[in-house]
């Protein structure tokens, strides 16, 4: 009597079909990530900058500005730095109007 010589399949084949599908869906996340990260935002990537000072000297006569002279006009030549009338804001007050 012939024995059944049919070979048995190994009992634990990896499920390649499922893995392939999982990879396709995992790569969706990768694709979404790439798109989000590589996009140029509307006004550009926001730059970081540290505290610092800028000149506020008179472009007309080169004089520096002193606190007691007010912010709106140059005490030396009368050049107008600020065309409007200052009111009481947070850092700037009405008292900062030059008296020229």
């Amino acid at each position, binding site marked *: 009597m012939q024995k059944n010589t049919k070979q048995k399949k190994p009992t634990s084949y990896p499920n390649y079909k499922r893995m392939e599908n999982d990879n396709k*869906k995992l790569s969706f996340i990768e*694709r979404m990530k790439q*798109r989000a990260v590589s*996009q140029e*935002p509307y006004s550009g990537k926001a730059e970081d900058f540290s505290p610092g000072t800028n000149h506020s000297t008179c472009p007309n006569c080169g004089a520096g500005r002193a606190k007691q002279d007010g912010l709106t006009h140059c005490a030396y030549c009368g050049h107008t730095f*600020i*065309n*409007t*009338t*200052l009111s009481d804001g947070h850092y700037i007050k009405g008292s900062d109007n030059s008296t020229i």
Partner: protein
Amino acid sequence: MSQNNPLFEPIHGISLFDYSAANAKLANGVAVDTICAALGVEIPVWEDASQGWTQRMQEDSDFIVITQMGTYFAQAGEHPKLGGLQAAGGAGNAANLQRLASDRYFYEELCGARTAAYEAGMDGAQWIQTNYGISLGDFQEVAMQWMQLQSSLSDEEILEYTNYMDAKRQEYARKFADENGGNIADDVDF
């Protein structure tokens, strides 16, 4: 809007119209230095006033300031000092902007496209700029103009535009998904 209402008092001579129009221009890419020069102020003055106006809106429980800001935003192009300011890159596509302001369906289509762009992981404002040459400030200015007319529309008209916008959103969502390999559940069928 009462002229006597302290909520509308200019801050350092910068009125709500100045502030609103300036924000429209900033959203168009106009440099803050340019805004300041046009208004006749320096940056610390502009920023102090800007913070002040933001605080006014937060302190206004009746939303009248923010409502008026919206109205002014829609009129940014008419501002005597700021109206003509343009970004360094130029005025953008004037024809498309004109169409956006006069063709409600075109406007709704671009609103849908912009939403779909964000929902697809893109920068919607940049997409509009790249594909139609319309900058964000101009887009928002036109949006406010359409909003001013909303109260004159019938319920049917409002629904018509809402449905049109949503249909366009779905159309663009499909396009953006196809450009990036599809949605995560595209192959899941009933």
